[in-house]
């Protein structure tokens, strides 16, 4: 349990906010792909915490940055938290990404609010000097996030797609990823995806076809976030596994879609 303070909380796209919190210990320990489970005060009828990935952590500044979409009452209340507001969170939770030993090149695919955990991973790859290409997508231009940050992290963004064609390629970000895997799959040792589940299933299928190891970050309704409730189960080839402890990042081959 970490007591945290809001440093800033500003919209970065349509319905998407960036929340920066002061949480020194967390900032030092959290790893790409892990998540936090944050208490959002303000509605006594709504009791559970909200699980959120993080987009970046600054161990020196002691801050963690989270990007979230406002989709319901909890995230709406979160968006109203002002700098200086205090709350607490549990974390880091779960297992993050596992970059394969000796990885030469990675392909990252991120859809919608699936961007943040992939962005963390990109920065980690960059830090380790592993080149990677990225395919990101969003419903429309207005709600696209991450383009600049991926650029800044050093990736040649191979494609941006929007469902409505308002920016970049008109369609899903999976299209570009599938094409890359089909044409130059041999150059990749790792595929990582986060976004809507059908999108991840598509990427996983393409990676499997190309014979490239693939990881996906799955979302489930979570009650506890630390292995106590079994509400977050993911069906895998070796039985049910909790997304909060065995995930949220899973080996895509293991997932029963």
């Amino acid at each position, binding site marked *: *349990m970490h007591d945290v303070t809001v440093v800033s909380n500003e919209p970065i796209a349509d319905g998407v906010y960036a929340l920066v919190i002061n949480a020194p210990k967390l900032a030092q320990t959290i790893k790409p792909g892990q998540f936090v489970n944050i*208490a959002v005060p303000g509605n006594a*009828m*709504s*009791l*559970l*915490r909200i699980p959120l990935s993080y987009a970046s952590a600054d161990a020196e500044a002691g801050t963690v940055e989270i990007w979230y979409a406002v989709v319901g009452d909890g995230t709406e209340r979160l968006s109203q938290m002002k700098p200086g507001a205090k709350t607490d969170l*549990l974390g880091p939770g779960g297992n993050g990404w596992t970059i394969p030993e000796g990885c030469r090149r990675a392909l990252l695919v991120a859809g919608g609010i699936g961007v943040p955990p992939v962005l963390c991973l990109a920065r980690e790859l960059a830090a380790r000097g592993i080149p990677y290409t990225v395919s990101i997508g969003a419903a429309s231009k207005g709600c696209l996030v991450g383009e600049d940050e991926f650029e800044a992290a050093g990736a040649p963004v191979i494609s941006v797609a929007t469902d409505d064609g308002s920016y970049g390629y008109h369609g899903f970000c999976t299209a570009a990823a599938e094409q890359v895997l089909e044409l130059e799959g041999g150059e990749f040792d790792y595929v990582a995806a986060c976004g809507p589940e059908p999108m991840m299933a598509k990427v996983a299928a393409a990676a499997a076809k190309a014979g490239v190891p693939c990881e996906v970050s799955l979302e*489930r*309704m*979570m*009650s*506890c*976030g*630390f*292995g*106590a*409730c*079994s*509400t*977050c*189960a*993911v*069906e895998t080839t070796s*039985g*049910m596994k909790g997304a909060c402890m065995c995930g949220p990042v899973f080996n895509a081959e293991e997932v029963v879609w």
Partner: protein
Amino acid sequence: MGKVSMAVDFAGIKLKNPINTAAGTFGQGWQFMNFMDVSELGAITTKGCAAEPWPGNPKPRMTEVPGGMMNSVGLQNPGVRAFAEESGPYLADLTDKGTAVICQVAGHSVEEYVAALELFDELCPWAAAFEINVSCPNISAGGAAMGSTPEGAAEVMRACRPVTKKPLLVKMAPVRLPEIARALEAEGADGLTVINSIPGMAIDVHTRRSKISRPTGGLSGPLLHPIAVRMVWEVCQAVDIPVCGVGGVMTGEDAAEFILAGATSVAVGMASFVDPAASVRILHELEEWAESQGVSSINELIGAFEC
């Protein structure tokens, strides 16, 4: 430690205090290690477990509702053998530290309950007692489907009673409680855990579908509390065996209501998701309340509700 003795005798188990955890909301105990000293609790009850592994229900398994949550986990469990292997060492150690471990037993049929209980009795020597779950609302056979009539509940109890010498508790569904409690007492139940989650329904009015993967799920949380207190009170008047009160306990005062209504122990459920250390906090709050009541033992407060 305060001046009030918090020790209670629950169904023949000596508990250092009345605070227990509700099955399915406290994992196998070790999940809480980093948040609190689990051995402060009087008891913990482990997630319902069957003889063979169960996969549970499809996703989504949970939705929030105002004042609580609704789940349809469906008793996902690894089977008693894997349970005993994975969690046995931790739970044996917890027992050594003076916290009673109550293992919950699941089944789809009388035979399955008996099979699970036999395995439990053999593989979990450290267990203080076993709790038979004839009240899970999220499975199609067994659980509430068996425990919602006096006859069904009694049948399970009758078959299980000879299997173990340890105390047998029964987790009850929130229906026809006094009748079913009497039937269970007659069949030799040592204690009753009241109540399991109340079945509910939450419909997404845009998709016209359930918010979880089944039409109905089990409700937990504060919304249950006044209903659960009433049910505990009714059961305590109907039988002589002790009762563990469960339902929406978020604070020491919530626990105190169960004690006053006649419960000998109180289990914390959903509160542990909101605040993983809720159970110890509630224990301390309960102790403070007992002190404020000027008693020397919490036992003086059990059933001390004045009509």
